[in-house]
């Protein structure tokens, strides 16, 4: 053969970005880590790159992959840019005016004919502080019953904590860990879920904080800890109660704190008295001496902190676990002092009060629990639904949720992307992204930071703030209550919410990292709650047994809602979900990079894979009482035998085209805390399509 000339590749494979002088500052609004970010725009004004903000003291220029990925979702093909109306099964473009008129007319009609309770909001992704405020004003004026992130994420945690301490928020900032002697992390893979903030924990460990991780999976966080305690799934309550029992029996608690600041200590001691460390060892699989050593460490290493995660707060016995672990922190006196307390991604600045005149307030004429919502939707009690979020992926028994939504008379989806829920709507409204909306953002460090709008919208997107005000106008509601911009919204919030009264935008912008709340008009910012030992319960004390009228009790996950009465012969394994660093909720899956980073898989122990007859990458059908989905197998020793875990946020209407994992969870609620169950459901798994080994 003679010589040949090879064609040059048509396109170069790389093109380094040009760095410009001007970067816009923003705050990442994904995981509540509150990382400062810098945005670089191209000539068209589109996001070219996202960097970490080195001036933000909380992330010091570090970020996880998610904010970099997110810019692609802004411009991708799934983005909704203008209002649409479903006509004979297909969406047609309409104007905002037409859409608002139609929604207003339907809304008023349902209120008159079917009562306020016939209209429901599922609004877990309502938007920033401006949108949240407008939405809450709208709800007060219309009696709209809303289901936010609570039922699928935070209800158990927030409800139990509220009853214990009078406030559902985390009591201390994550940054406090550097002052702690011990940090107990339970069911929380913060190394992946808040990677940009994980350096606080590694830094604390380097300077002597003992980091102990309790989890069923050998997580990345567990790997970075001083001690990893692997626990049988769903048995955390037993561990928490045994720690309480041991600490009480051996007088290892803080007697002064207990006497001065708590109620119900004797009753709590009684509740946990049967749960010895020996019994807990049998239940949890954690050796008795390890449990006792942990109790001793917690008693000696003070101050200490607790950081729970979705691994224990979204399970069918979540409330009791939160109760046990947080009660433990209280009797150890680990609340209110520097380096003590509970870290949580629940950081509410509190709502407004007294803005709406009593005459204008409309109360919902009926309320239902989140689990009852399904039935009421199916049976026609609910007529109209306002969605901001993606319940057809994020709510349990997602297929049932989709069907219920399909059966409703009128559905509106205010959304970023054409997702599994939006396709079922009658009207689709384009929503702004958090980078396209200014607002105040609270974070896991218990600070609020202000972010300006970083990029302009490119279509007809509107924020929830604008949408709810305009809708109120059309409906003939007193629309003067509504702010007309993120800035005026914040001023209104400061006026009607004393927790943020002292936090002006100027102050936030002038303070790197933002301002701690509560911070009243005259008062100082409070780094942590309850520093003075006064709790927000009616007694002013920690109500150790105020969570429920029944005693604190350990209920086996197999005998708790969702699993009780279901045949374990038929469903021999346990199915759960966990997140990975490249994805956050359902939002990131529309990014090419997120797609390249991670595809859906189900983690499985090698012996379980052998039992089922599947190998790495083969397809397995996971089946529960609620349904079945097919996933690719990832064999790993990081999960115990018989325990399967996958990612909870993929949808059919996304580049992944993956049936949502939440569809495998039957609609069941944690009896103590109220969260819908989205972990630890018994399942079966079989090789799919004759692919078995």
């Amino acid at each position: 053969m003679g010589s040949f000339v090879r064609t040059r590749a048509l396109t170069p494979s790389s093109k380094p970005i040009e760095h410009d002088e001007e970067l816009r500052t923003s705050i990442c609004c994904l995981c509540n880590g509150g990382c400062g970010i810098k945005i670089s725009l191209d000539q068209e004004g589109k996001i070219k790159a996202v960097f970490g903000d080195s001036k933000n003291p909380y992330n010091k220029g570090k970020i996880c992959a998610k904010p970099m990925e997110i810019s692609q979702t802004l411009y991708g093909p799934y983005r909704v840019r203008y209002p649409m109306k479903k006509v004979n099964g297909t969406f047609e473009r309409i104007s905002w005016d037409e859409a608002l008129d139609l929604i207003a007319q339907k809304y008023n009609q349902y209120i008159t004919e079917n009562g306020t309770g016939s209209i429901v909001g599922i609004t877990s992704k309502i938007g920033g502080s401006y949108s949240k405020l407008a939405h809450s004003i709208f709800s007060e004026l219309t009696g709209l019953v809303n289901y936010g992130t609570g039922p699928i994420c935070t209800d158990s945690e927030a409800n139990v904590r509220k009853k214990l301490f009078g406030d559902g928020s985390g009591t201390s900032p994550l940054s406090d860990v550097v002052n702690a002697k011990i940090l107990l992390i339970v069911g929380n893979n913060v190394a992946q879920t808040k990677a940009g903030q994980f350096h606080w924990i590694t830094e604390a460990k380097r300077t002597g904080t003992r980091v102990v991780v309790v989890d069923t999976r050998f997580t990345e966080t567990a790997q970075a800890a001083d001690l990893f305690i692997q626990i049988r799934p769903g048995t955390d309550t037993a561990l928490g109660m045994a720690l309480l029992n041991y600490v009480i029996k051996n007088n290892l608690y803080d007697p002064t704190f207990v006497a001065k600041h708590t109620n119900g200590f004797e009753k709590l001691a009684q509740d946990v008295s049967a749960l010895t460390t020996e019994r807990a060892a049998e239940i949890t699989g954690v050796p008795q001496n390890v449990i006792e050593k942990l109790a001793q460490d917690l008693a000696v290493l003070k101050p200490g902190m607790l950081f729970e995660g979705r691994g224990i707060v979204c399970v069918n016995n979540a409330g009791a676990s939160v109760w046990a672990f947080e009660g433990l922190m209280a009797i150890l006196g680990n609340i209110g002092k520097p380096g003590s307390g509970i870290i949580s991604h629940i950081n509410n600045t509190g709502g407004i009060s007294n803005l709406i005149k009593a005459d204008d307030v409309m109360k919902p004429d009926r309320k239902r629990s989140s689990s009852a919502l399904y039935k009421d939707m199916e049976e026609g009690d609910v007529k109209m639904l306002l969605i901001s979020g993606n319940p057809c992926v994020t709510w349990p028994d997602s297929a049932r949720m989709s069907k219920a939504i399909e059966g409703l008379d009128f559905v509106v989806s205010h959304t970023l992307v054409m997702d599994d829920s939006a396709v079922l709507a009658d009207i689709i409204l384009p929503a702004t992204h958090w980078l396209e909306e200014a607002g105040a953002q609270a974070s896991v460090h218990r600070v609020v930071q202000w972010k300006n709008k970083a990029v302009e919208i490119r279509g007809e997107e509107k924020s929830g703030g604008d949408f709810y005000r305009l809708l109120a106008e059309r409906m003939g509601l007193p629309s003067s209550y509504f702010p007309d911009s993120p800035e005026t919204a914040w001023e209104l919030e400061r006026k009607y919410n004393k927790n943020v009264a002292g936090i002006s935008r100027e102050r936030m912008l002038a303070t790197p990292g933002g301002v701690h709340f509560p911070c009243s008009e005259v008062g100082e910012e409070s780094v942590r709650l309850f520093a003075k030992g006064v709790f927000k319960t009616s007694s002013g004390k920690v109500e150790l047994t105020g969570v429920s009228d029944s005693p604190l009790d350990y209920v086996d996950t197999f005998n708790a809602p969702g699993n009780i009465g279901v045949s374990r012969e038929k469903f021999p394994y346990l199915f759960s979900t966990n997140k990975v660093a490249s994805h956050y909720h359902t939002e990131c899956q529309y990014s090419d990079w997120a797609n390249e980073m991670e595809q859906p898989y189900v983690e499985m122990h090698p012996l379980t894979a052998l039992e089922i007859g599947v190998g790495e990458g083969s397809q397995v059908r996971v089946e529960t009482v609620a349904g079945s989905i097919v996933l690719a197998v990832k064999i790993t020793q990081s999960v115990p035998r018989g325990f399967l875990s996958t990612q909870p946020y993929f949808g059919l209407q996304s580049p992944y085209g993956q049936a949502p994992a939440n569809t495998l969870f039957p609609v069941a609620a944690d009896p103590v805390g109220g969260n819908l169950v989205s972990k630890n459901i018994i399942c079966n798994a079989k090789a799919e399509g004759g692919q078995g080994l």
Partner: protein
Amino acid sequence: MSQHAMLVDESRCIECKSCTVACKQENGLQTGDWWLRVWRREQLKDHLVRSYNTQSCRHCADPVCQFVCPVGAIQRGEDGIVIQDHENCLGCHVCVSACPHSGMKIMTNGKVGKCTLCSHRLERINEPACVTVCPVNSRVYGEREELLREANKRVAELRAKGMRVNLEGADKDQTAVMYLLVDM
């Protein structure tokens, strides 16, 4: 002349893969192309051992890729950075097989590509993009001597804890990117 280098400390990695996305963003890589990857390895001994192996060009002092390239498209500069010239690359992939560190990657356009240590960025920002984002300082960039001191301290610390680790790229077969690796 003080020399710069990068240290990748595997023992600190939390597998968030922020570095890989930062690399794609910084270098404008096409979908499907990577200059930096993170692989998970795990092994059951008396307990489960797991580590995250990142792979990208190590910028060898004596690069074998340069040696094997038939058209001289790979050169090592004064600054110690090994640069592959995209225009001249034939796409023969010989370098890919020759590189002992999986540093040279096949790109979707048929040619090869690899880490440039963000040379376009070093003047202004003074460190590669993957280093800037890494939340746990598993990747650091700086004076070679200082990094070496740090690395040796870390090795001693980890060995004292009973971990088996070793440092690659520090001595004779020098590379500008040094690796503190966890033995499996």
